[in-house]
């Protein structure tokens, strides 16, 4: 198995290098081929997985290369910091370089495996390779329309594969030192992506992303340091840490790792970089939001969840994410730019995923995995569609989307399905949300301490309110999209470039198929992964027409009926046409008034600083609690 896994690391790197030199036509073929191969490998790996995790070591020389690469990256960051005159960037990088040098001298040299591939990693492989591959294919057309030199276009495609390689490595890494390198690699890749357009705003936002993610790197170094110097841990690998955690009882390293994840996951107060990333070309947003980068956050938390479950660190993380869920949902309501709405809703849903990961019960973890998967596919679809809307229809604002249903029925269909998959039953994201409410309800019964009960009740209220706010947001967007002036004789899908059409069709079919296949996907795909994470079985059972997972029952008949009624009904509404029915104009008090669309809008300018302060407080809280325990 190990060679196949390694091919997942090597292949994207090779493709990435080749893309820099190949001509356009060849690059196209190579991208498509590479995507198919990578997706094929990742699916094959999952399909042929064994019961035991795959562990393998690399030659000792790689250790040295990793260390050199670490310093090279930090040097690059310091150089960028100096060139752009940003003290935060070079200051943080220099600090990391210092700590890394000190750690390198004290690093224990035991016998341990650098890579550890379990079901979670395989799950991530599928998400990363399939979804990012689709984005790479989409970028072939998108970047063609960008105004930049041919080399930069190649460079853009090349960076995507670099990113895929870094993410694959990251999900397989066991050694924290390696993990640190790959973490930094994704940081640098996102930095390069965000400043791709090279205007003032892009550079500024790229620097913000850089320094914020540096804090994540710093946290990982902190974790390594504490691991090395804590008696009982010694060896900085995930698997070792997790096995030793119950006996050692020091959870500060996990607190540090959690912080690294939360920074990547753009939780308050570090949400600014993800919003700022909007200035990059749209495929970048799709890449950052759907399958890569931000998904590191729930990934790390899922990985460490057995160690932190039930500890105060988990409690603080749950509080933070519950707070971020509602704050980001309110923040999203205040936006009008389509991409910004998507970005804020990403932060909110990420918060939910992290929350479920931190809760760590079987159902919660299953829900988190489902959210990760469906959110990845839906958000990818929505972002790529936002790119089409910008390039083909020149629409950026939701308020300008009121004509979309008439000029681009296909595009509006995609938006509708995308948003409904985040809102309506029985799409995955909905079930995830539903599970979260039901699981959180059950926590209070399981845990005895009154304080914890109070907190879990409070969190429930926040989740419920945040969910209501999010649905308000989706109404707003769907509402502006469904608006139309009158009737067309025949629905005619607009003509799109084959690449656009192909990628969108693929994602659309994936969302719908996965939804229909949910009763089989849950026991067959999500439950085994969840079982690996919590290190015990996840009981799934069919009873009558209901799917029972642990203690949560999923009635299938209402779900299927709801699927036929609501999402399909709304889609049908967009294309239906009644015959032999007369049309009348809208009532406007008998006057001829100018129509202008505007729904309620909200501003969060006053509240945003408080969100940030609260976020900082929570981050300090995580460290403090981790230290005190």
């Amino acid at each position, binding site marked *: 198995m190990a060679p196949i896994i390694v091919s997942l690391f090597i292949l994207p790197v090779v493709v990435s290098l080749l893309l820099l030199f190949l001509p356009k036509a060849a690059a196209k073929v190579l991208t498509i081929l590479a995507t198919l191969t990578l997706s094929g490998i990742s699916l094959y790996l999952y399909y042929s997985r064994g019961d035991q995790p795959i562990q393998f070591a690399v030659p000792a020389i790689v250790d040295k290369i990793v260390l050199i690469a670490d310093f090279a990256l930090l040097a690059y960051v310091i150089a960028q910091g100096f060139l752009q005159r940003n003290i935060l960037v070079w200051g943080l990088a220099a600090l990391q370089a210092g700590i890394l040098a000190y750690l390198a001298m004290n690093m224990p040299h035991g016998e341990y495996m650098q890579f550890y591939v379990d079901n979670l990693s395989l799950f991530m492989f599928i998400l990363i390779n399939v979804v990012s591959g689709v984005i790479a294919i989409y970028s072939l057309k998108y970047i063609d329309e960008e105004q930049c030199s041919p080399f930069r276009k190649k460079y853009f495609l090349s960076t995507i594969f670099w990113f895929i390689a870094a993410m694959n490595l990251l999900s397989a890494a066991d050694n924290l030192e390696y993990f640190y390198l790959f973490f930094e690699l994704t940081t640098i890749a996102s930095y390069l992506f965000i400043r791709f357009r090279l205007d003032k705003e892009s550079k500024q936002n790229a620097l913000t992303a850089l320094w914020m993610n540096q804090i994540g790197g710093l946290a990982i170094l902190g974790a390594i340091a504490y691991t090395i110097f804590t008696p009982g841990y010694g060896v900085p690998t995930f698997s070792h840490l997790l096995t030793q955690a119950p006996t050692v009882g020091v959870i500060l390293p996990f607190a540090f790792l959690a912080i690294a994840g939360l920074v990547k996951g753009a939780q308050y107060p570090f949400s600014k970089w993800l919003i700022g990333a909007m200035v990059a070309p749209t495929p970048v947003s799709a890449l950052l939001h759907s399958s890569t980068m931000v998904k590191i956050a729930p990934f790390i938390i899922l990985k460490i969840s057995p160690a932190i479950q039930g500890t105060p660190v988990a409690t603080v993380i749950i509080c933070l994410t519950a707070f971020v869920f509602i704050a980001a949902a309110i923040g999203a309501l205040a936006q009008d730019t389509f991409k910004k709405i998507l970005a804020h809703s990403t932060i909110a849903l990420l918060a939910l995923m992290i929350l479920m990961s931190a809760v760590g019960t079987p159902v919660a973890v299953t829900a988190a995995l489902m959210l990760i998967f469906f959110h990845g596919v839906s958000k990818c679809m929505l972002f790529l569609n936002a790119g089409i809307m910008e390039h083909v229809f020149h629409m950026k604002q939701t308020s300008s989307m009121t004509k979309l249903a008439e000029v681009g029925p296909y595009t509006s269909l995609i938006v509708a399905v995308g948003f409904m998959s985040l809102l309506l*039953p029985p799409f995955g994201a909905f079930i995830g949300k539903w599970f979260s409410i039901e699981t959180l309800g059950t926590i209070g019964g399981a845990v005895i301490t009154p304080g914890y009960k109070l907190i879990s009740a409070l969190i429930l209220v926040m989740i*419920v*309110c945040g969910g209501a706010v999010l649905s308000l947001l989706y109404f707003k967007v769907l509402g502006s999209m*469904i*608006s139309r002036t009158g009737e067309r004789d025949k629905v005619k899908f607009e003509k799109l470039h084959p690449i656009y059409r192909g990628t969108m069709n693929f994602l659309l079919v994936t969302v719908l198929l996965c939804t229909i296949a949910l009763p089989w996907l849950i026991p067959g795909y999500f439950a085994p992964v969840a079982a690996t994470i919590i290190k015990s079985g996840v009981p799934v059972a069919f009873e009558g027409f209901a799917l029972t997972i642990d203690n949560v029952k999923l009635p299938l008949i209402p779900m299927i009926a709801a699927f036929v009624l609501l999402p399909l009904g709304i889609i049908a509404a967009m294309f*239906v046409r009644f015959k032999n029915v007369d049309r009348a104009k809208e009532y406007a008090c008998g006057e001829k008034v100018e129509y202008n669309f505007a*729904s309620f809008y909200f501003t969060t300018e006053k509240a945003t600083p408080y969100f940030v302060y609260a976020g900082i407080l929570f981050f300090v809280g995580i460290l403090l609690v981790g230290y005190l325990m």
Partner: protein
Amino acid sequence: MNNIVVQILLIALAPILGGLIYGLERKVKARMQRRIGPPLLQPFYDFLKFADKRKMIVHSTHAFLGLLHFVSLWFAVAVLIMGGDFILIIFLHLLSTAVIILAGFSTRSIFSHLGANRSAISVLAYEPVLIIIAISAYMLTGSFDVSALYASEIPVLFKMPLAFIALLLILPVKLKKSPFDVSEAHQEVVGGVELEYSGIFYEAVYTAKWLDYIFVYLLVFMFGGANIWLGLVLVALTFIYINALDNSTARVNYKQMLRFCLWVALPIAFVNLLLTMFGVL
């Protein structure tokens, strides 16, 4: 609620029952205002009349969403009668509301838009309270199924009195009754989202209102537990309470409504959740 025949009958007759409740309500309301009021079967006369009007719509999407609203609401009511998962029922009800909100947004009619906006705000006002009540019920019975509540030997009312109060506070929002009838507000938005419907398509929206009555009164009935008579008494008392409230208050604006629901009803439901969690009652 054990008998499957009774359940199916109830589901089939739900719109008719709702129509009767609506007719009774119009009668009671008229009597409270010292009028004679329309006959009891007035809603059905309206229904039959609308069936015979010329079909006029703004556009097909709008009309279709109206029909979909009715069907999905009926479905939500059916799941409630069958005793399904409480959270799922609340979501289904929310989504049937979503359909009518989308219908409001789909036209280029200003009052329709205003109504849709206000309906969306109303959802924000009542949905959290309902879900909190559902979770409290879970804490009580250990199951999210409503059938567990129907089967509860000790009436749910005595176990979660505060939840009942919170429910009473948000009912006017759901039933679009004064003081919280902002989304329908005839004098302001001329009926809101239902404004642009006419003829047979209005019928769907009009009948959906009846189903809403059934939905709400079933929620109230649930608090009686296995004791059917207590449930019926609660329904009757709630009916009188809703009408008395409707006839003694002016309409507040949507901000005041939202503030009231989130700062008064939600905390009450929350306290109830805590009480159930700690097993006080």
